[in-house]
């Protein structure tokens, strides 16, 4: 490697580190000194009630939002101070599933899913079409390449967003509520996909969820956020033993329903 650009040597055991991050929107503090580490090749789940700041944390991890104070390291590189074009380079490591899918509504499903390939790969048209078919298959969608996002159901849109996020096979995938609004069978296959990516391809995943069941299934580490504060951060196995009153309440409500 002779080029002078930031070539990150992945020597730190963490793919993402969020350090002392504070963020306010106007007078409204949303993140209050958040610290969070995501181990390389592992799945980190962030649990928390609506409006607690989960999406805001995730947008910091990929540089869509800049913290008021604190740092975010991706493979050891501080992305809060990077110029925009270098930040774009760092983002090639990422895939992200948006909470509301965020599909390009002027493009068909096929064009949406192939967008990252057309931008960043040199594959032939046929190879791209094949790849798109394969990734749509992973999320149980067939023969919808020619449809427009407006013609799809909410759950289908979400799954197209999933396919688009993983089509370049990135090393880090951020999932903002990947299974919310999906039926139990599809939820199961998405959970399996996340597990599989981690086990077989050593993909690092960050999953935001409301769903404690899914969380326990896919997580290596779980963090619970409440009103912009990380109130618990433990390996998945230990979450049931948490003594934090909010975490106990959050989990108990869920377990009672089972």
């Amino acid at each position, binding site marked *: 490697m002779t080029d002078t650009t930031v070539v990150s040597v992945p020597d730190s055991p963490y793919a993402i580190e969020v350090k002392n991050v504070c963020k306010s929107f106007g007078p409204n503090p949303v993140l209050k000194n958040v610290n969070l580490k995501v181990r390389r090749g592992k799945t980190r789940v962030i649990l928390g009630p609506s409006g607690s700041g989960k999406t805001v944390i995730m*947008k910091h991890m*990929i*540089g*869509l939002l800049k913290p008021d104070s604190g740092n975010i390291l991706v493979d050891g590189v501080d992305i809060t101070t990077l110029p*925009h*074009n270098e930040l*774009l*380079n760092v*983002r*090639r490591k*990422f*895939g*992200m599933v*948006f909470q*509301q899918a*965020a*599909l*390009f*509504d*002027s493009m068909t499903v096929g064009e949406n899913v192939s*967008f*990252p390939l057309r*931008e*960043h790969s040199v594959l032939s048209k046929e190879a791209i079409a094949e790849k798109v078919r394969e990734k749509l298959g992973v999320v149980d969608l067939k023969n919808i390449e020619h449809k427009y996002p407006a013609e799809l159901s909410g759950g289908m849109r979400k799954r197209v967003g999933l396919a*688009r996020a993983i089509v370049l096979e990135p090393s880090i995938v951020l999932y903002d509520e990947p299974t919310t609004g999906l039926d139990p069978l599809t939820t199961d296959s998405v959970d399996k996909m996340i597990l599989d990516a981690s086990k077989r391809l050593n993909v690092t995943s960050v999953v935001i969820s409301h769903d404690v069941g899914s969380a326990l299934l896919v997580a290596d580490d779980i963090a619970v956020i409440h009103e912009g504060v990380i109130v618990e951060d433990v390996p998945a196995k230990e979450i049931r033993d948490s003594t934090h009153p909010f975490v106990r309440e959050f989990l108990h409500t869920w377990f009672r329903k089972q």
Partner: protein
Amino acid sequence: MSSSSTLERLNENPVARPFVAIGNMAISGLTELGLVVQFFASAVALACRPPFRVTLLLNQMEFVGVGSLFIIMLTGTFTGAVFTLQTVNGLAQFNLESVVGTTVMIGVTRELAPVLTALMVTGRVASAMATELGTMRVTEQIDAMEVMAVNPVQYLASPRIVASAIMVPCLSMLFVAVAYAGAYIMAVPVLGIDEGAYISRIQEYVASYDVMHGFYKSIILGVLLATVGCYKGYNAAGGARGVGNATTQAVVISSISVFVLDYVLSALLMKFEPTYNAVSY
């Protein structure tokens, strides 16, 4: 800290309040002007850098240019015709009907074609750009593009601004052509002005620099309206209402700026033209 408290105290004074408001408006207006210029500069810089988005550029050229053909032909023809109809009355008082073509075509080439074209294209194109980019912003499509390591300014704004810089002058030239036709039809067959005199007066007195004057201005006006439309859309916030506001502001700001910039550019360009010594301004 102390300056803000001074401002607050001033704001409590009923006489000073309007001045504080005007001052604040001026400051925020200038700040926004700076941001628009910055946005424009980065869109241009990115347009000169790979990846070159040729397909997107062609699509936008079609939208801006081909899509505006009809309205420009319609407004151009009627402008030429009505301008002739109105002017000929005044000139008749001096028995100068035959110079009506000259008067009309100087007005059209230098002012009406670039300005009216820019206004028509603003209504059609700047509004569409603001709405489209604004919707993409509030539905996180622009964020999604960022996340996929594609620069959204380069993907969305650069082709639109370049397309507009190319197509608006072409439309303006089309406006000149159809206005000529409209003026001719009004002057010769309808008003019965002698054809030979009508045409020779135009050939004598309308110079190529009159046409170029309008052409140069329309390049800048094309850049202006697309930049404002894209900037407003790109920075939209707050759902459907935010997109609506962005569109309204894009059209209003761009239309006003067309007039202001047109004046500035006219004054500048006239410094380089032979007419400069004939009038003092």
